[in-house]
């Protein structure tokens, strides 16, 4: 079954072009095109329930750009890729699961979307209560006092993925604060007390 892609792109020319590339290759199917993300469009986004969202970050105003990925994740669990045509603030692109350029070859675009989907399926959304190996690694970093950005750099993850892991750690353990997570890690022998004192 082909993966469903939703485009959120204000330019009809760009949207049609991207749609063409996806539909041509059969692996993906464009299930909808939105020109912006007003509240009625958000409902459409939820109803369409896509596997992949390709969004032009310019639909977000400057102030909300940094939280764009988090805002989208309130409505969809899809992998989200940004599509940009010119120079763009690198830091704000890190929140996405991938970045497409208007100048990417069709095969490059498909490869990037595939990678984003694979990474995404690694992000634990399981209902299991045991911490995964990756969650334990991240818990140890948190207990040692590392910042999200440092953890992201260490494991080559997006900050958004680190935040998702941290949310899952808190959901599974019931522990919210860094100090509390440190105690948890020590009680479970994930770290040694000497490494944090």
């Amino acid at each position: 079954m082909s993966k469903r892609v939703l485009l959120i792109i204000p330019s009809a020319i760009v949207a049609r072009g991207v749609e063409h590339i996806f539909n041509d290759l059969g692996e993906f199917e464009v299930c909808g095109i939105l020109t912006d993300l007003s509240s009625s469009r958000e409902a459409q986004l939820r109803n369409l329930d896509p596997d992949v969202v390709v969004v032009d970050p310019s639909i977000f105003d400057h102030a909300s750009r940094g939280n764009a990925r988090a805002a989208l994740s309130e409505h969809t669990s899809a992998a989200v890729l940004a599509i940009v045509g010119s120079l763009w603030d690198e830091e704000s692109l890190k929140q996405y699961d991938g970045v497409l350029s208007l100048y990417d070859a069709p095969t490059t675009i498909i490869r990037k979307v595939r990678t984003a989907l694979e990474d995404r399926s690694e992000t634990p959304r399981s209902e299991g209560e045991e911490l995964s190996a990756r969650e334990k690694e991240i818990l140890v970093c948190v207990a040692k006092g590392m910042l999200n950005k440092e953890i992201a750099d260490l494991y080559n993850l997006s900050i958004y993925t680190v935040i998702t892991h941290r949310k899952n750690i808190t959901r599974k353990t019931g522990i919210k604060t860094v100090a509390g997570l440190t105690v948890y890690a020590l009680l479970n022998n994930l770290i040694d007390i000497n490494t944090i004192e």
Partner: protein
Amino acid sequence: MATTTERHLLSPSMKMADLMNQRFCLLGVLTRMGIPFGFGDETVEEVCRKQGIDPETFLLISAVYAIDGYMPTKEKLEKADLRDVLKYLRLSHAYYMDVALQELEMALENLIAPCGEKHKRIIWKFFADYKDELSKHFEYEEKTVFPHAEAVLRQGIDRNFTIGEYEENHSNVEEKLEDLKNLVMKYLPPVCGQQDTYKALFYIFSLEEDLEKHTVVEDEILVPIVNRLENHE
């Protein structure tokens, strides 16, 4: 308009003993209003007046504790006596620091006594940090917020500070306590005794619930009253 529960449960003409019998969590409100026991068959109004406390304010704070999700109406807030609210908040702080946390600390000490030195140290440090955080939180309120409220009440003005700043920065002190609860309940090593764990958890749950209501008194009673006084300048 008062809700039905509020009208039935909390009226100045009912006997104080009946009120306490209905909701024993109000015993805490009573003692932290500085009302002594031994009130016989006197009504809420009589008992309060004797102690120089406004009965409506006593009932307003009681409503927060007795009715889940209670939000005071504008009329109730206008009738409330800010001095009594502040008296209650100050005595509550003293109760948390000198009684509730002490009890919890002793229970925790017994609980982790069988643990190894390493685990003892970790849990102890966590608790000490929490106590410290709570104490700083209270200190800020007592040194900055409450004196401001009194100044506004006295002179109708205090330009050094506004209650809005407090409202914005009113931090959440419950998170660490919730963590402690989960750590004790879910993750302590099996050497810890069943009764000791129960006792520690009992104190944590009680304190947690009490602090939640305390925050409601601050955010939904203290803040709007001071806000109104500030704007009447």
